């Protein structure tokens, strides 16, 4: 498998020179009395593949929901700095504005638009980059028609890149499982993100599909220049793919570092396997 080491070197060199593209400071999220996230700090740099791991219920998906604007965090600051643009605060932005700012995500359980075709699913991703509105729809002026043609072309190109061009006109709900997962990625990429958030992209995939996913993610980073933050339980995938890993448990960050560092970290082993009890 590929990935890992060169990206790591790039990322390390850049760390000193560059600001992070996503920076989260002391992020806290309370649901009533339950503290789902507890002063979490995290940063992602350009061209990195970063993994967020932790036991079930550790708060990983909550973290994604906070940065994508679905949950308003109780405390903390979330900043993005798209390459070549000024930093923006994410706090308080609506999800569609977060997406327009260049963050895109996929879900743990597949959430395609089931009764739309594969092509339409991707075209919806282009929605926020387009401008034609009510009047364009009613009067079909030239700009609208041209724009619609361009969207079809771009979306088709995207499907080709992800390897889904054979399914263009099928309903999303009729695709095989692995293809649905890839379509989610294609739809997210159609929004033109600089950072892609993947929530357990390999969940439910077989070995072959996981291997293809691994290659796809590296390709997205290398060819499209999109950085990646992923939640994943498949440790083999995480270790081969990630430049850096963050480990959370009970909403707290318990470790961060390279795959090699994480593998031998006693706190991580404890979180996953439980404490040894001397009898």
């Amino acid at each position: 498998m590929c990935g890992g080491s060169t990206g790591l070197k790039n990322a390390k060199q850049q760390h000193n020179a560059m600001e992070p593209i996503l920076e989260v400071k002391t992020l806290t999220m309370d649901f009533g009395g339950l503290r789902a996230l507890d002063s979490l700090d995290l940063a992602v740099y350009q061209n990195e593949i970063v993994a967020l791991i932790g036991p079930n219920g550790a708060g990983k998906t909550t973290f994604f929901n906070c940065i994508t604007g679905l949950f308003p965090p109780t405390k903390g600051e979330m900043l993005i700095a798209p390459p070549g643009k000024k930093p923006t605060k994410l706090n308080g932005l609506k999800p569609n504005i977060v997406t327009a700012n260049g963050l895109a995500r996929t879900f743990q359980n597949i959430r395609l638009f089931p009764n739309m075709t594969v092509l339409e699913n991707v075209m919806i991703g282009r929605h926020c980059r387009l401008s034609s509105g009510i009047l364009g729809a009613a009067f079909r002026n030239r700009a609208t028609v041209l724009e619609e043609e361009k969207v079809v072309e771009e979306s088709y190109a995207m499907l080709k890149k992800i390897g889904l061009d054979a399914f263009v006109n099928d309903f999303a709900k009729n695709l095989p499982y692995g293809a649905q997962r890839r379509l989610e990625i294609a739809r997210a990429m159609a929004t033109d993100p600089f950072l892609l958030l993947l929530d357990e992209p390999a969940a439910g995939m077989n070995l072959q599909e996981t291997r293809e996913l691994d290659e796809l993610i590296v390709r997205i980073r290398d060819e499209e220049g999109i950085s990646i933050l992923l939640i994943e339980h498949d440790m083999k995938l995480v270790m081969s793919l990630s430049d850096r890993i963050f480990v959370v448990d009970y909403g707290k960050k318990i470790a961060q570092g390279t795959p090699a560092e994480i593998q031998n970290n006693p706190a991580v082993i404890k979180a996953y396997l439980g404490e040894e009890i001397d009898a």
Partner: protein
Amino acid sequence: MEYFLELFLSGLIRGSIYALIALGYTMVYGIIELINFAHGEIYMIGAFTALIVASVLTMLGWNQIAIILLASVVAVIYSSAYGYTVEKIAYQPLRGAPRLSALISAIGMSLFLQNYVLLAQTSDFMPFPSLIPEFKFMESYEHIISSPEIVILATTTLVMIFLAFLIKFTRMGKAMRATAQDREMAMLVGVDVDRIISFTFIIGSATAALGGVLIASHIGQINFYIGFLAGIKAFVAAVLGGIGSIPGAVVGSLVLGWTESFFTGYVSSDYEDVFAFLFLVFILIFRPSGIMGRAETEKV
């Protein structure tokens, strides 16, 4: 046979008018799962707007075609503004609230608009000019179908084709479908859901207003209460067809139109509404998701 054809056509026309109103119900339900009880009132406001515009223009001595076109356009714009505002005032603040709250807010809006028009106008029936002209070429078919009826049929068909096109092919239509299927996900792929909801209310109100103008000029009188029964009938039609489904709203409206027309024609006209609602009861017992509605599949 002639009698049958007459009933068939009258049912078709009734049905297509119900469809103009039912489309608004079903589109709004499809997107935010709210029964917009104020929808019938939007239709009524459309009819009143057209009456006012038509009265003024008649006094100014405009010709009939110009009057109906301008009256319709003004009614459509004015009602759309009402639909948009109702959503912003009464529904949007309740977006996160339980569905019952929004439903009660809708009933409140409906009563408010009825009484507002009652106070601003009058409780009496007001004569509505028959705006739709009698065409020369229709004279030989007059005993089967009248000119206004042809106009109603043609307008309804055009509106439906336009809507189908809008929803199937345009950018806004795709965003509407995406919002209907998964609102949260639509937001996350960058769709401004609030805007799409406003857009849906505008389109629904516009078609309802068009229905209001057509029926009012066909029947010849309006008052503040016409929105209530029309709204209930269109709601029945939308449920019959499967609420949330756009082709369903059209099919449900036609079925309801024909049911009413045939029962009143062959049985008794006193029981027109009884048949309509009896039919609804049977549909709900034997096919609760409606004619075109898909049964909810439980997710495992």
